[in-house]
Each structure stands twice: as C-alpha cells, then as structure tokens.
C-alpha cells in the first residue's frame, strides 16, 4: 500500500519535470553513498509543493508563518540523507577534521522529565550508542560536518534548506503529516511523544494515542520510510536546516534556496520535532527556531547534497 503510493507520487512528479528525471546514476528514488563513512543519501525528485498549512485555523498548533502558505518550486533533484547523521558518522568527522565543539549540552533527564544544562556533557555521551542520531550539536557544528563531507568527497554537501526539508518530509503528501492527518496513525513512521513515552514520563502536553515502541531517542532507521525513502523526518531528533528563523513566510524565496539574512542571524530553524514533541507539532509544516549556538540532546541534523554540479562545471 505504502510503496504503491510512493511509486505513484514519484512517477507523477517525474512526469512534471521530465528534464530532470533521468540524470544518470541519480534517478529520483535511488540511493548512493559517496564514501565509506559518508551518510546514505537518497535522490529527491524535483517538484512543487505547498509549504505551510493553507487552512491553518483547522490545524491545531499551526504557527503564524504556516498560515502564509506559499507554493515552492524545487526545480532540480537533490540528495538528502536517508537518516539523521549518526553519532558514529559524527565521531568520524570529529576525529578527521579536528573540529572541536565546545563542551556543554542541554541534556534530557527522563527521571525528572526535564532538560538540564550540563557543562560537562557533549555529543559523545548524549546518545547511548553509535547508531543513534548525533545530538548536542550546534548549527555551526552541523555546518562544519557538511563542509568536512564536501571537502572529503568533492561534492556539494550542505544542510538542507527549510523548503527542501518540508518538501522531503511531505514526500508528495498534502496531509498534515506524511502518513495522513491523524497523529495516532503515525507510530510505525515516527518516534514522537506517544503512549510509551507518556508511560515513562509525563510532560505538560498530550501524547499521540498509539505506541511507537520508543520512550526516548531511538537508533536511526527504526521507523518506516516516507514515499521518498527517507526515515525519521518526523520525530526522533529535531533537525537543523539552513534558514534563519522568522515568524512569517511573506516574502520568502519560492524555490529551493535557504532564506537567510544579509549579515547573518542568531536563530536558525529546526524541523521535524523529536521524541518529546506533542501531536500538534509532529506535522510536516510545523517549525521552530533555536539560537544557532544551542546544543541540545534532542536536536541533530541530516545533510543535503547538490546533484550534477560537477557535470555542469565540466561543460
């Protein structure tokens, strides 16, 4: 059922953008890896979509910007990490690059059901094992990781833009969530604040009325992929994107570009929510901002990569 819908979505998008559907080696839906320690990448097709929540009044938790829904055109395919960057992948970057992130992290205390700022904790001990998402990473750490990958492979690795992220999370869907409108139908697709988590710790908000099998941060790739083949877009760890934080979409670029201010910005957007995110915010369009320097145990990232850049340069 899901794969049939996925194939249909991909076919209709490919048909709308014929010139980009047949780039050799990078057909939409295919996967690749540029090096042994590089993340698994999925080719996301070109297409267009409605960014935001056009009938925001009907969607609980929809923030103001979502109501200014805009049609965004993703003019060419690009690659996006199938999963959130793992602690093992991040550790390799730290070892190779000499990047020295500051110590300190907002760590999660499940016993007290709250975050604590802990100056001694870091990405190394934020997750229990290597196959968990790398968390306790700042925006600059995430950008440095992508820059390291780019230098290592010669390919244009970077963070996804907010538009690319939402387009990829929706994967052709126009519902509130990739799997439909109802949060309670998503427990095979996303690690959010659900009955399992709620039985472990009580937060001041409601839980998704289903069981996803995970109380806290989960290893990457445990949940069903969306129609583009991407996993954990919703839930598990919040993900940094390149865009500056703002409260409205009025005036934003209508294409794949990140929306950034001249002179930089202190807050960047995070997308997708985490294992702590209430149902209202586990929507494809839900967005939040965080200070760019913040390191938190529920926030990580995935990388994007331009396709075909080298081919164009050689011509």
């Amino acid at each position, binding site marked *: 059922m899901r794969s049939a819908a996925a194939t249909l979505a991909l076919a209709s998008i490919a048909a709308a953008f014929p010139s980009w559907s047949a780039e050799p080696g990078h057909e939409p839906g295919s996967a690749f890896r540029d090096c042994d320690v590089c993340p698994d990448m999925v080719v996301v097709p070109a297409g267009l979509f409605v960014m935001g929540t056009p009938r925001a009044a009907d969607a609980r938790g929809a923030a103001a910007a979502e109501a200014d829904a805009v049609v965004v055109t993703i003019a060419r395919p690009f690659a996006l990490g199938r999963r959130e960057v793992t602690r093992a992948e991040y550790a390799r970057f730290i070892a190779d690059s000499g990047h020295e992130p500051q110590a300190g992290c907002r760590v999660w205390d499940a016993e007290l059901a709250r975050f604590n700022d802990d100056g001694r904790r870091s990405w190394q001990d934020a997750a229990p094992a290597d196959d968990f998402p790398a968390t306790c990473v700042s925006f600059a750490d995430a950008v440095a990781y992508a820059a390291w990958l780019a230098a290592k492979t010669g390919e244009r690795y970077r963070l996804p833009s907010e538009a690319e992220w939402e387009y990829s999370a929706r994967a052709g869907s126009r519902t509130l969530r990739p799997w439909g409108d109802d949060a309670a139908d998503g427990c095979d697709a996303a690690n959010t604040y659900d009955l399992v988590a709620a039985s472990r710790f009580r937060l001041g908000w409601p839980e998704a009325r289903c069981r996803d099998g995970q109380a806290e941060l989960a290893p990457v790739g445990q949940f069903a992929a969306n129609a583009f083949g991407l996993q954990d877009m919703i839930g598990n760890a919040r993900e940094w994107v390149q865009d500056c934080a703002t409260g409205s979409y009025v*005036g934003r670029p209508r294409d794949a570009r990140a929306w950034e201010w001249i002179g930089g910005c202190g807050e960047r957007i995070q997308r997708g929510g985490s294992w702590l995110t209430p149902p209202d915010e586990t929507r494809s369009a839900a967005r939040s901002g965080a200070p760019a320097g913040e390191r938190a145990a529920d926030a990580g990232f995935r990388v994007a990569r331009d396709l075909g850049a080298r081919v164009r340069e050689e011509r």
Partner: protein
Amino acid sequence: MTRAPFAMLLMLAAFPAWAQQAPAAEPRDCPACPELALVPPGQFQMGSAPDAPELEPGRGESPPARLSFARPFMISSREVTHGEYRQFVEATGAKSAAGCRVLSGGQWIQDPDRSWRDPGFAAPPRDDEPVVCVSWEDARAFAEWLAAESGKRYRLPSEAEWEYVARGGTSFPRYWGENDSREDLALSLACDHANVYDASAVDGLRLPGPNARCSDRAAALAPVAQFKPNAFGVYDIIGNAREWVMDCFTASYAGRPPDARAWTWQGGCELKGVRGGSFASRPRDARAPARGAELAGHRQSDLGFRVARDY
C-alpha cells in the same frame, strides 16, 4: 508644545556623549542635498503590543521587537521633493518606465501616461511637493546619486530607523500623542501634524474608507513641511506621501536584527517596506508602527521617500 523639547532633553541626557550635537538643521552636504535632522541613539519598541488599538492583522507589527540604536544617524527632515528629484534626473539622465498608479473616481488605477513628472493631480506638481510615482529602485538610485555628489553615505532609511524617527522620541503610535484615533467616533488631532485622508480630502478623493474627523486644508498631496514637525525636527513622516524604506518585507518581526540595520535577504526580495501612510490613508493606517509593503518596481501617486545618512 513643550513636550517635544522635553523628550529631546531626556534622550540627550541619557546619551551625554552626543549631547553636544544640537538637533538643529545641519548645513547641506551638497547643493542638491536635503536638509538633515540628527537623530540621537536610543532604544525603543518597534511595533505594537498584541492588545494595542487599531492593529491591522497580517502585517506583522505585533508582537513588537525591542531595538537598540548604538549610534546617531541623520534623516532628511522632509520627504524628497519633486524639485530635488528633477535635479537628479537632469544630472544623471536617469530614466524610469512610464506609468503610475493614480487615484481616479475613488479607485486606484494604473495609468500608463502618468509618471513622477505628472502624477495626475488637479494642478501640475510644484517643486516643493514630495516626489511621487517613484519606485524603490528610483529612490535608491537617488540616494546613491546624493552619496556620489556629497561623498557622504546617503541611503534609504531602514524600517527600524524610520519607525524610531516617526515616533519622535515618544512611545505613541502618533508623535502628537494620539493613541487611538477611534476613526468614526472622535475628532482627530492629526490635522495639525499630518496630511492624511481628512474632511478636506473626502470630496476630491471619495475613498471608501473612513476619514480623519478634522480638516488639514489639503485635498491631496501637499507641499512638504506645511505641518508641525516632531521632536526630531522631521516633517510629514506621517501622511502626505508614503515612504519607501530599505528593508525587505515579511509579516512578522520574529528573527529581525535587534538594531538599526535594514533587514534584507540574501538573494534579494521583491517586497519592500512602505511606511507612514499618505494623504489617502485612513486614520488607522497613519501611525508610526503601521506597516505596508509594495513590489520594488511599484509606482503610485501617493508613494515617495526620504533619505537617511550615516552620521
């Protein structure tokens, strides 16, 4: 009457390093350069509280942002005039596409025969009226020409600078102290200070919105500096012609720079901020925090600009 100098004193007292600089008119930087007002540094709340009167939803003036200006700057005490703009066009040969959006029978219509040379009012434009029917690009080109003529850093004001100036050192949405105009109920205080859509404009313009309940004796565009200035010595910052600012427009202040800088995107933007209202603005829109936006190439017969300069 005494409030304005008093507000000034307060601000100067707070920033003694700048207190020696009197806020009086400075000598002009070049023959075509406008008279400038010196604006002291300070802090203010840009935008309006969520429960403020006369908020227009969807324009992003609320929630407000707390801004801090570390340095003084200068702003032209008047809107750039028709005569000044003509000198620019004559000196540079600047050409702009014909066509302007003008008022006709109570509606705004695009008229291909109108331009800044003839914006279509009852009489031909006077040299001391604000120039209108100029796009954001035209306005910026004018500021760059002034910069080249004078060697000083002329530019459009940022949206933050504009609102800071428009409030005139007060926290009121109108520097004359009118918090809520109560459009249809109350006699308006606006007409001593600003050329807005008032009783004297109704017969000529016949706009659908409510008018200020007073008479400013101007049916449409008025010569600059006919009304009372604010505490910074700035005229017509509310009303007469709407004014372009440097900033890109988005409908929220969340994420904006916390200082005087213009908020602009990488890769540019289509929508630019427009401020201050005009002779055609209903009372609700003739407020310092009220926001508007137009496409950068837009030309309209109630839309002009003023320039700012780094100090």
